[in-house]
């Protein structure tokens, strides 16, 4: 059933007439044209669709629009501020921490939430924090290094 849902998206107040049962993932990708959030598995196993809600990394394929009402949502498109890359984005570029790039938005946003909670994680903490995000190209080593780089303020 259609309802009016208001939330903050990438810092901007947003109001949508939308079925509250639709998932955030597909509303972002269709209604809102924010295709940086990727569909990978549809069941929360891969992390390609990760966005930030509040301060948490969340699988947008597992979140309905009703659950988003009143919340602060950030997608990969909202991470760079005023044309300046976020340190995590800079470090992913710097370390070549990507190949096909499809898992990259989810990786960066999962790492973003990890660093909010723990600004200086150890290698083991990074591995634990990122373990449920899948990358098929095998960029794991570089991703860990990029997150370490960002956490050290490089």
């Amino acid at each position: 059933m259609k309802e009016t849902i208001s939330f903050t998206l990438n810092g901007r107040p947003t109001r949508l007439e939308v079925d509250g049962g639709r998932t955030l993932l597909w509303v972002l990708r269709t209604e809102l044209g924010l295709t940086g959030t990727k569909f990978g598995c549809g069941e929360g196993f891969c992390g390609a669709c990760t966005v930030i809600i509040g301060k948490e990394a969340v699988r947008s394929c597992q979140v309905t629009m009703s659950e988003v009402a009143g919340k602060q949502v950030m997608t990969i498109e909202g991470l760079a501020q005023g044309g300046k890359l976020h340190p995590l984005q800079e470090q992913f570029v710097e370390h070549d921490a990507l190949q096909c790039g499809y898992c990259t938005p989810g990786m960066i946003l999962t790492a973003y939430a990890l660093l909010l909670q723990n600004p200086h994680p150890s290698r083991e903490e990074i591995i634990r924090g990122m373990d449920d995000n899948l990358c098929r190209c095998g960029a794991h080593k570089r991703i860990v290094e990029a997150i370490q780089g960002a956490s050290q303020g490089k």
Partner: protein
Amino acid sequence: MANEDIDQPESGVTDSRWHLNRRDFLKLVGGGIVVFFTVGDWLLSPAEAQRGRPYPTDPNAYLRIDKDGKITVFTGKIEMGQGVMTSLAQMAAEELDVALESIHMIMGDTDLCPWDMGTFGSMTTRFFGPALRAAAASARSILLDLAAERLQVSRDKLQVENGVVSVAGNRPRQVSYGQLALGKQIAHQLEGGTQLTPVQDFKVMGKATRRLDALDKVTGQALYAGDIRLPDMLYAKVLRPPAHGAGLTSVDTSAAEKRPGVRVVKDGDLIAVLHRDPEEAAAALQSIKAQYDVPAAEVDNATIFDYLVKVAPPAEQQDVRGDLAAGEKAARWLVKQRYLDGYVAHAPMETHTALVAPENGRLTIWASTQTPFPTQDQIAKVLGMPPEKIRVMTPFVGGGFGGKSAGRQTEEAARLAVLTGKPVQVTWSRAEEFFYDTFRPAAVVDIHSGVDAAGRICLWDYTVYFAGSRGSEQYYDVPNNLVKVRGEWMGGTTSAHPFAVGPWRAPGANTNTFARESQIDIMAARVGVDPLEFRLDNTTDARMLRVLRAAAKRFGWKPAVAPSGRGWGIACGIDAGTYIATMAAVAADKQSGKVQVRRIVCAQDMGIVVNPEGATLQMESCLTMGLGYALSEDIRFQGGRILDENFDTYELPRFSTLPQIETVLVENDELSPQGGGEPAIIGMGAVVANAIFDAIGARPCQLPMTPQRVREAVAKG
């Protein structure tokens, strides 16, 4: 990729087969200086010529220099993560003496790029690369001629820097490439004999270079096929059978038809629901009631291997040397062993996706594919349309690994687009991706081998079922040798596998290397020799000796007879012209069977290294991905029913799987660039198997080496 800055032809004169005269050709691509060339002319050796044979002799790719100095490279190759967008741009920049930033890449667009068979087999750099370099060098030569005329000096007095030609010793007398190209319409067919920049003069090639696509990919701006949006587009979900080989007996779509905005299409074997909202289309699909006849399962994970051996086609014999009976007689130690390898999925993070837009009798297609031109042909055939009325564009591809050569999703979207008259996007669910994947085939290898009293391999009797010949070639010095290949990886006999199989990163070579290098270690242990020493003693191949020594040096290998308890392993091999030697340190637990790889060192000789950073990335990628088929990836099935539908049961390597990875590029500037996207993956099964044996004295001979299989190997002793 991006095509916004291409001058579109005014009239629709596009013959995508490139049987164009030069005037049409220039009209199509705009003015400036255009060089086109034929890849087939530029193969470097007879061996390479043989592997590159599928390339046609039509003009095959080209580059253009614009009046603003911008250089555009057009190629039918695609970027799926392997980094060729960057390495091809480097090659063009090197030969043209321009900055990397001034190169623009247009990839995988059948209207703008000349024909290409597809992106696979680690062939882009090896076969397309030399031709592109020659085209760029040839363009530079044309520009120098023009500059000599313009500046009124002889060519040998000119120097080039960053796309500006100046007179040596009188720099202000200069002219830019853009000024030279202004108002020119020059089409040049490359004819050979072009001098390429020697390695010692490289300014762009050979330098660690960051990916040109990185910025788009970290900001979410990079577009994949599923990210393209068109007005009025519909999302389609297609009705699927529960098993391969199942036949539809009845279907009731009435509930779906009642849902608002849903369009149901039934066209022969294709039953689909379409909606403006992809989730509503998925919900409508769920409401369809369908019944199928599912044939009884004849094989499953456990029985498939005996079945494959039973149905295998006759052997193709290779590497026939000496006399096997004599070899057996000369042997002091004989080892007979069977190796098994299961089905493995490609599982790219982006599922198969295509968007097809019909307009005025033409189709425009955005597809996630490794093969845009074959896809164009495929769609033309299915729809009975001339290929030139179909344009396939390839945005970024979210992983391929050999699995995005078949174009089933594009076919579905194209049929639905024609039937509805609307742009239609098909994005497979993860379950569909597993169901229709062209798996790496299950395979069996039997080896009977012997070692003489001097520690030399004297017998090698090798039979491979269904993995094919790639990676089965013998590089140990064995006087009595026979390799029998029964069934290539495409299947050999069509009925052998209960579902589709196909190329998977280094097709066949993973299975063959697992078997051969495990067998070598078994022999070394039997003889009582350190496994590195045993290899060094049994081959005289200089490139192999070099990579083995390079890996050993970095790893800090110290000789010991396995099982030493250290958990060290070694494996080597050749793939796509590249040599690799890999060493690993693992921790293996006898009780639980759990294996954790702690460290991997891989040394690789790939000839001239175009982009050391890209080559290193590809090696790391191979080593990480290879841990999956070594330890956990195994498609479970019953007949045509695929039991793995998502990543909860099909286990990819994760961050917690990640060992310390070290790579070594062994310098070999005598040799043209060889393959880089596949070779380093081939040793992962054997290196881990050998390290497990070294750790606990038990050897799994079946991939993947799951905890259960390790426990079984321990129980066997």
